[in-house]
């Protein structure tokens, strides 16, 4: 076994993991603020990827510009979803909440499949295939850009959550719903904000991943499961933990592809997940 292969695997794991992190951050935010397990998270991500694709094909807008547009559109869609659906099931039994987010998933995923067709599509730009190398490691440009943007988003989210009124109010709502109502925070508005931002960040993840991985309407099902692993690994509702665990997950995947079998890399990830929730459901970075 060559040491270069292992270093390569770890670096690729970090790069691909940063996308899992973006989906996981969004999921974690929603989960932490309103205790809703959003199974449709991956499908908002898929919509982000398709917005990027259509903007490139129809209007020739660069993917790096369209991430802002896809965040905006999916943010509004998220607010809309929260207002007409999720706000009504906040106090419903657990099975009812899970099945409602599953029905959102079915509408978005299969609606997209019926609308766009079940084809696989590629987002190709002038810089798609570019590589640059540091030492023996060759890095694809689009993945490095993705990694940098994901860190930027984490920083922006951190500033938002700690420095702005809405961010602080959001954290207040997630810590104590009744207390937040008492000091005059509009809780339902905050939930709409949280859901919008949560799915919006995942949509950015989708837009970014479309620059180096082919996209198709059912792609969300795969990423949402990985995002679940990352959220649980990172500690329930802990945004920063989710980010780091997304990257750890990417490394676990690429390393098990090297050491075990490429086709079994996801099996390893899911076994880690089951063992983790059995042993320490509060996650690696949980309290």
């Amino acid at each position, binding site marked *: 076994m060559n040491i270069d292969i292992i270093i390569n695997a770890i670096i690729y794991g970090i790069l691909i993991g940063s996308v899992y992190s973006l989906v996981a951050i969004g999921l974690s935010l929603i989960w932490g603020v309103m205790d809703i397990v959003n199974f449709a998270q991956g499908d908002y991500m898929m919509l982000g990827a398709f917005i990027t694709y259509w903007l490139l094909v129809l209007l020739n807008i660069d993917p790096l510009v369209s991430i802002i547009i896809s965040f905006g559109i999916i943010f509004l869609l998220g607010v809309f979803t929260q207002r007409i659906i999720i706000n009504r099931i906040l106090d419903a039994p657990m*099975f*009812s909440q899970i*099945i*409602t987010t599953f*029905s*959102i998933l*079915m509408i978005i*995923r299969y609606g997209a*499949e019926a609308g766009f067709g079940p084809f696989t599509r590629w987002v190709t730009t002038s810089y798609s295939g570019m590589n640059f190398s540091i030492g023996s490691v060759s890095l694809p440009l689009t993945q490095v850009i993705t990694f940098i943007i994901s860190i930027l988003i984490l920083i922006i989210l951190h500033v938002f959550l700690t420095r702005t009124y809405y961010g602080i109010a959001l954290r207040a709502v997630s810590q104590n719903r009744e207390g937040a109502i008492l000091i005059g925070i509009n809780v339902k508005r905050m939930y709409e904000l949280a859901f919008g931002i949560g799915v919006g960040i995942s949509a950015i993840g989708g837009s970014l991943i479309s620059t180096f991985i082919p996209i198709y309407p059912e792609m969300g099902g795969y990423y949402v499961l990985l995002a679940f692993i990352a959220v649980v690994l990172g500690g329930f509702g802990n945004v920063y933990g989710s980010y780091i665990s997304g990257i750890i997950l990417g490394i676990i995947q690429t390393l098990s592809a090297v050491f075990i079998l490429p086709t079994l890399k996801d099996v390893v990830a899911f076994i880690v997940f089951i063992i983790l929730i059995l042993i320490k459901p509060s996650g690696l970075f949980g309290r």
Partner: protein
Amino acid sequence: MNLFIEKIKNQVYKHLILILGTILLFIITILSWYADLPFLANVIFLCILYSIMGMAWNLLTGYGGQFSLGHSIFFGVGAYTTGVLLARYGITPWLGIFVGAFLAGLNGLALGVPFFRLKSHWFTLATIAASTIYMLTFTVWDYVGGSVGLNLPIVPKELAFYYMYYQGPYFYALLALVILIIEIIILNMIVKSKIGIYLTAIRDEEEAAKHIGINPFKYKMIAMFISALFTGISGGLYAVRFGILEPFAVYDIITVSVYISITGILGGIYNFYGPIVGAFIFMPITEYVRTNIVVRYPMYYGLHVMVVGIILIFISLVMPEGVLGWLEKKGILRKETIIAAPEGD
């Protein structure tokens, strides 16, 4: 005395509806066989198939309070066991289906040992993860056909009955109906026995149940075994009916696990017959959309599942207790005494 008579009446009505429904389904299937209406019989077959699984699932979820979205595991194990025994060893499905069901039950027990330590949505997430592991493993396992899938052999006409090989869905619909009736009788006995009462107690208040000497783990395991057993039988029926087993179809979270839970949630998970009502509501709609729009215009593939999503959103916003639960709330049906829905939650 009056109350007693009313209770008896209620029981008789329920059984009468059940018996009439069975006879009606039987006659429709036979008629569709003679009139050659495969669509009708296929819908009946799928409704019954999902009713079998929904009833089994409901024992674990409605009675036991463990929300499983991993029943595709037992469905898949049942289907693959029947398929492999037939395709590789030529063993008749009459035996294979029950071997498959038993193996599915064993898988249920094996998964129950670690998973029943988990509470509420953690259990659900673990079952989803487990079903994904099964799916991914079966795609790389060459013995069962890998990702290409397993094709069941074509059988000469003389041996059709022995190998359960018939054209069209008619025979399978009748067989499924018989299995559903057997299942209803068995589950009815279980639910009325102390197992059902203990399960409900565990669902409503696990700590209190423990304090009066009920072992929650033991009764959850019993529920899991029976639930997996019947889901496995369904899987075997699916295998002989469609003759091709692909891991992505058999272990699909949406069209197997979530569909099973939809039957219960649509009909009412706190009602014994809820899953049957649910299956007979949503299956005909989605199959109608599939055969009339999706098959004719393949570019709209996915529409039939989207329709189910819309029905589901409607149900969870308007009548979260399901159709039967809603009818009970409106006073049209009498509330079932033993398994009242937990207050609040």
